[in-house]
C-alpha cells in the first residue's frame, strides 16, 4: 500500500548523480536534465512551429485590423473596446455560452465518469463501450439526421408525436423546438451532452483499467466493503490525473460550443437564442473577414477557459495522500 502514495511528482531520486569532478554550470545542468531535454525535443520543436507560432500570430492580430487582403494594421486595444463596450450581440453570445457550459460541462463530466465506472464492471464491456462511444464515431451524420427527426417541429417529430398521443398537445399546435427561442437552448444542451461524452468516457475507462488490483485487495483487508467507499477512498484519488484531463476536456468542449448550435437553430438563430462565443467568432472570421476582431474574441474565450482550467488543475493536483 505504501508504495502507491498519490504523490507522484517526486522525480528527484532518479536524476543521475553529478560527477564528482568540477564542471561548468551548463555541463552540470546537462548531466542532470540532458536526457529529459532529448526526450522532449521532437515534441517541443514541432509544437513550437505548428502550434505556438500560429498562436502568437493570432494573439498579435487581436490588436490589429486585418481583412485578409490588406496587410494588418495596428489599432491597439480598439478591438477589445468594441467587443466589450459596443457589441451587444457578443454579450448575448457570452451569456448563452456560460449557461450552456455550466449545465453541459458538469453533467457530461459526471455522466461519462459514471458510465465508465459501471461499464468497467460489466461482462460485455467491449460491446457496451462501443455502443457508448458510438456518438463520437458517427457524430456529424448522426446528429443531423437523428436529432432533427426527434425534435422535428411538426406533428411527426418524435417528441411532438408522443406528446400529442399522450394528450399534452393538440395536433394543430406542435412545439417549434428548433425555432422557439425558449426551447432552442435546452435542445442544444441535450444534444451536446449526448454527443460530448465519448472522449472523457474512454479516458476514464483507460484510467480504471490502469488501476492496480492489489489496492482493492488491500482495501478489502482494511475492511472497506461498500462499493461507494471504494470509489471515494481508492478509485477517485488514484484517478486524479485522468479526472483532470476529463475536466479540462469538458471545459474546452463546452465553451467551444458552435456546431450543434448552428445545426439545431440555424445561423443566425432566432433572437440570437443559440448564439455562442464561437458562433460570433465564426461570423467575424469567415463571413465578415475581420480576422483581427475574430482574434480578439478568441483571446477572450481563451482567457476564460484558461482561468477555469487553472482552477481545475489546483483542485486535482492537491498533494494529499490517502
Amino acid at each position, binding site marked *: 500500500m505504501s508504495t502507491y502514495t498519490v504523490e507522484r511528482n517526486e522525480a528527484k531520486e532518479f536524476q543521475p548523480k553529478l560527477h564528482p569532478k568540477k564542471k561548468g554550470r551548463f555541463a552540470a545542468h546537462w548531466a542532470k*536534465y540532458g536526457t529529459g531535454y532529448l526526450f522532449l525535443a521532437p515534441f517541443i520543436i514541432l509544437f513550437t512551429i*505548428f502550434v505556438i507560432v500560429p498562436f502568437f500570430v493570432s494573439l498579435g492580430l487581436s490588436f490589429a485590423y486585418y481583412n485578409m487582403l490588406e496587410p494588418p494594421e495596428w489599432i491597439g486595444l480598439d478591438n477589445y473596446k468594441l467587443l466589450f463596450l459596443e457589441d451587444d450581440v457578443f454579450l448575448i453570445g457570452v451569456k448563452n455560452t456560460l449557461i450552456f457550459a455550466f449545465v453541459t460541462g458538469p453533467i457530461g463530466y459526471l455522466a461519462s465518469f459514471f458510465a465508465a465506472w459501471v461499464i468497467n464492471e460489466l461482462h460485455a464491456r467491449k460491446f*457496451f463501450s462501443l455502443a457508448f462511444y458510438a456518438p463520437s464515431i458517427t457524430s456529424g451524420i448522426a446528429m443531423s439526421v437523428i436529432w432533427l427527426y426527434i425534435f422535428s417541429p411538426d406533428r411527426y417529430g418524435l417528441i411532438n408525436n408522443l406528446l400529442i398521443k399522450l394528450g399534452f398537445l393538440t395536433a394543430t399546435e406542435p412545439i417549434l423546438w428548433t425555432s422557439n427561442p425558449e426551447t432552442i437552448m435546452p435542445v442544444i444542451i441535450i444534444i451536446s451532452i449526448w454527443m460530448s461524452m465519448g472522449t472523457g468516457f474512454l479516458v476514464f475507462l483507460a484510467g480504471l483499467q490502469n488501476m492496480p488490483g492489489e489496492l482493492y485487495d488491500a482495501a478489502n483487508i482494511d475492511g472497506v466493503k461498500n462499493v461507494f467507499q471504494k470509489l471515494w477512498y481508492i478509485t477517485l484519488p488514484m484517478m486524479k490525473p485522468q479526472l483532470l484531463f476529463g475536466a479540462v476536456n469538458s471545459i474546452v468542449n463546452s465553451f467551444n460550443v458552435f456546431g450543434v448550435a448552428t445545426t439545431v437553430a440555424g445561423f443566425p438563430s432566432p433572437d440570437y437564442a443559440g448564439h455562442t462565443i464561437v458562433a460570433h467568432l465564426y461570423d467575424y472570421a469567415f463571413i465578415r473577414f475581420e480576422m483581427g476582431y475574430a482574434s480578439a474574441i478568441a483571446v477572450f474565450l481563451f482567457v476564460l477557459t484558461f482561468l477555469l482550467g487553472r482552477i481545475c488543475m489546483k483542485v486535482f493536483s492537491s498533494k494529499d495522500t490517502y
Partner: protein
Amino acid sequence: MSNQAISVKQRIYARRRGSLRHRIRKIKPSRVLIHIFMILLVLFTSLPLVYLVSTAFKPLDELYIFPPRFLAMRPTFQNFSSLFTALSSTEVPFTRYVYNSVLVSVLTVFGTVMISSMGAFGLVKYKPPCADFIFNLVVAALMFPTEVTQIPSYMVVNKLHLINTYASLIIPKLAVAYNLFLMKQFIEQTPDELIESAKIDGAKPFMIYWKIILPLLKPAVFTLIVFAFQSSWNDYFSPLVYITSEAMKTMPLAIQTISGGTTDLSRAGAVAAASLVTIIPTILVFLIMQSGVIETMAYSGIKA
C-alpha cells in the same frame, strides 16, 4: 504443445462453468437493475450507428417514407452497388484514396504516440526546470480556439514548402497538445521504483522508456491510438486546404465528391453507404484497441 493447449482450454471452460453457476447464485437485484439501466442508456447512445447501418441498406422508396422508419423493411445492397459504380467513375481509382488515407493515418498515429509519450516521459520523469512552463503552454494551446489559428497555420505550412505533400497532412498533427496532456497524466501514475531498479541494472534511458514505461502505458497508448486515428482518418480540412493534386487526396474528400455535398434525399442511401464504409475502420481500430486494453488488465508493476 497441443496437449498443453487443450488442458489450458479445458481449464478455462471449467472456470467459466464454475463462475457461471457461481454468478447465478450471486445475482443481486441491484446488479440486474444496473444492467437494465445500462442497456437502455447504450440503446440510446448507439441509435445513430443503428440508424446509419439501416439507412445504408434501405431501398430508395423507403428513404422517402415520412415520418422516417428506423429499420429497413426490405434491406438491399443497391446503395453499395451504386456507390461502387460512382467510385469507379472517378479519375483516380478509389483504392488510391484508401491508400492515401491509410498511409497518412498510420504514420500520424505512430508518430504522435511516439512523440507525445517520449515528451511526456521527459517532462514527468526528468522534471527539467522548464517543465511547469511547458505544461502550462500545452494546456494553454489546447484552449485556444482553432478557428483563428487556421490561417497562421496555413502560412507556416506554406513557408516550409509542405503544400501538396503527404508531410503537410502528417507533420502538423504530430505534436498535439491534447496527446501530450493525455500521456503526461498517465505517466504520472507509473511508479518510480521500477525505473530506479532498471537504472541500477544498467538500463539506458531509451530502454527504460521503451521496455518499462511504454508497456505500463498500454491503456493510455491504446486510447490515444483511437483518438488519433479517428481525427486523422476523418480529417476533412487539412487535405482540402493543403493538397491540390487529386492523386494525393484522402477518403473524406473523395466521399464528399461522390455525395456532391447535397442534402438530396435520393442520395441519402448512397451517402449512408459511403459513411458506413468510412467509419468501419474507426470501429475496427476501436474494437482492436479495446481488446488490447482488456488483455493488459492484469498489469501490476510491483506488489503493494
